[in-house]
């Protein structure tokens, strides 16, 4: 039964830059923290899934954690790696194939924008050679169109970034901990119109692990937060996605739209019930668009929502309370699980300086990756 699986342990290696520490070492660190938090030993875990994009093979972390013979599936699914690993572990638990699972995501990227190679994405090398193979261009062109269609202002893009850095300042594990005003964000260098430097996240380093358990193992936990659903989708024909030399004239819903709808349906919980949400904010525009794609608001409603402060920690719908990708950076394999980590902390009431006030019963996470994958999860106490 899917309502039977809970997150019972959380571990995180601080995000940022950590010279001399390998991605796999960060993964093992996060895993040990998660096991400690769950009050269990590595030998108690009977399934593991995890991954990174550039940090190595997740299963080799057993060399540091212990060689217990458990099945360990490696996932490499772009920015949705953490969500994919979570989906895999959730399926193993709900099917009865495992009782206690560890899910780990980690990464370590050099500074600067990513430089994916066209050949690895099924595109001719000309696409990269002529300067079209940049994720930042896609994000800019998607929000450019969206702003024109739905009346989103540059001020709103800047407010999303300012909120992220304000929240990051309250998060000891965040990378960017200096608050930046809307004015400072709007004064930063233009990178890809309409997106400026401080509206983008940066590739970084970090690791997150969560322990999942089902049945009695979940019930007996100190503070179980139930994983009510997790849904994973890839793009359909017509969805506007990164690294697309062409797109059809007729549009289709995004993978996020479909994954979110499936996650809410499976959970029997609606977007209107969500008390705290984490959505993929690789740049300011992504947070704006994902808010509507997930169903947390209507298209165009973000302008009023964000301008009024509703998505701040003290607002009606707190979003990316840990500072999101903007303040934490983007270690590709770790970001999806960072979202889960934050939502569980918030629902437990253990989020410290950034704890959302008031009701905290339902949380939601959404991670998105190239070339059009999305994983969404609904969690509740």
């Amino acid at each position: 039964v899917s309502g039977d699986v809970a997150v019972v342990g959380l571990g995180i290696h601080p995000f940022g830059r950590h010279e001399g520490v390998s991605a796999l070492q960060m993964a093992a660190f996060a895993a040990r923290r998660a096991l400690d938090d769950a009050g269990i030993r590595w030998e108690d875990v009977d399934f593991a899934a995890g991954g990174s994009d550039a940090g190595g093979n997740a299963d080799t972390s057993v060399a540091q954690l212990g060689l217990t013979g458990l099945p360990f599936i490696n996932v490499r699914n772009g920015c949705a790696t953490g969500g994919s690993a979570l989906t895999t572990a959730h399926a193993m638990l709900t099917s009865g194939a495992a009782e206690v699972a560890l899910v780990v995501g980690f990464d370590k990227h050099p500074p600067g924008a990513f430089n994916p190679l066209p050949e690895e994405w099924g595109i001719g090398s000309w696409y990269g050679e002529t300067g079209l193979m940049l994720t930042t261009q896609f994000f800019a062109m998607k929000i450019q169109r969206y702003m024109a269609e739905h009346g989103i202002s540059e001020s709103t893009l800047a407010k999303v970034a300012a909120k992220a850095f304000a929240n990051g300042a309250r998060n000891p594990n965040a990378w960017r901990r200096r608050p930046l005003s809307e004015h400072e964000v709007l004064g930063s260098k233009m990178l890809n119109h309409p997106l400026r430097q401080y509206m983008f996240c940066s590739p970084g380093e970090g690791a997150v692990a969560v322990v999942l358990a089902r049945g009695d193992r979940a019930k007996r936990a100190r503070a179980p937060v139930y994983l009510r659903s997790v849904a994973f989708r890839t793009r359909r024909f017509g969805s506007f996605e990164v690294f697309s030399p062409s797109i059809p004239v007729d549009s289709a819903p995004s993978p996020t739209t479909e994954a979110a709808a499936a996650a809410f349906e499976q959970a029997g919980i609606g977007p209107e019930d969500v008390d705290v949400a984490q959505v993929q904010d690789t740049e300011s525009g992504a947070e704006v668009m994902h808010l509507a794609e997930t169903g947390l608001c209507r298209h165009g409603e973000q302008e009023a929502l964000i301008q009024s402060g509703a998505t701040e920690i003290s607002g009606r719908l707190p979003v990316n309370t840990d500072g999101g990708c903007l303040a934490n950076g983007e270690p590709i394999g770790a970001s999806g699980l960072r979202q889960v980590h934050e939502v569980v902390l918030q629902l437990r009431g253990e989020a410290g300086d950034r704890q959302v006030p008031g009701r905290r019963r339902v949380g939601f996470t959404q991670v998105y990756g190239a070339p059009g994958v999305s994983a969404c999860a609904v969690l509740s106490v």
Partner: protein
Amino acid sequence: MLDQRDFTPVAEGLIAGTAAEPRLIGSACRACGTVTFPRQASCPRCTSENTEERLLGRRGTLWTWTIQCFPPKSPPYAVPPGEDFEPYGVGYVELPGEVRVEARLTVSDPERLRIGMPMELTLVAAPGDAGTVTFAFRPVEEEAGS
């Protein structure tokens, strides 16, 4: 058509026609009519493997755009780091009834770009490789004024 070509493209199978009237080489699905660029042997909409080459229309409207203000990493970009970098425009141009094609734009001034403006296919020097060209779109007004 290909034998009339008076330019060297950045890659084969992308551009046909002449420098004065270049055409993009796409494909159309014989089963459902879906148009793709570049050409591909199977249809992303209906999964049919029955597609045919199709030269795409040269005119359309700007669907979205951005300006690339920083030098892309090389590889994959053809120009090594450290060389002079000039910002360039990138956009998707909707070819009516066919497909939206991503391309460089001849314009890099944001004040001169707006969604919906008419655009036309042209050729520009390919980055880094003297003598080869790639495809780009230019505002139709630009042509009228030149």
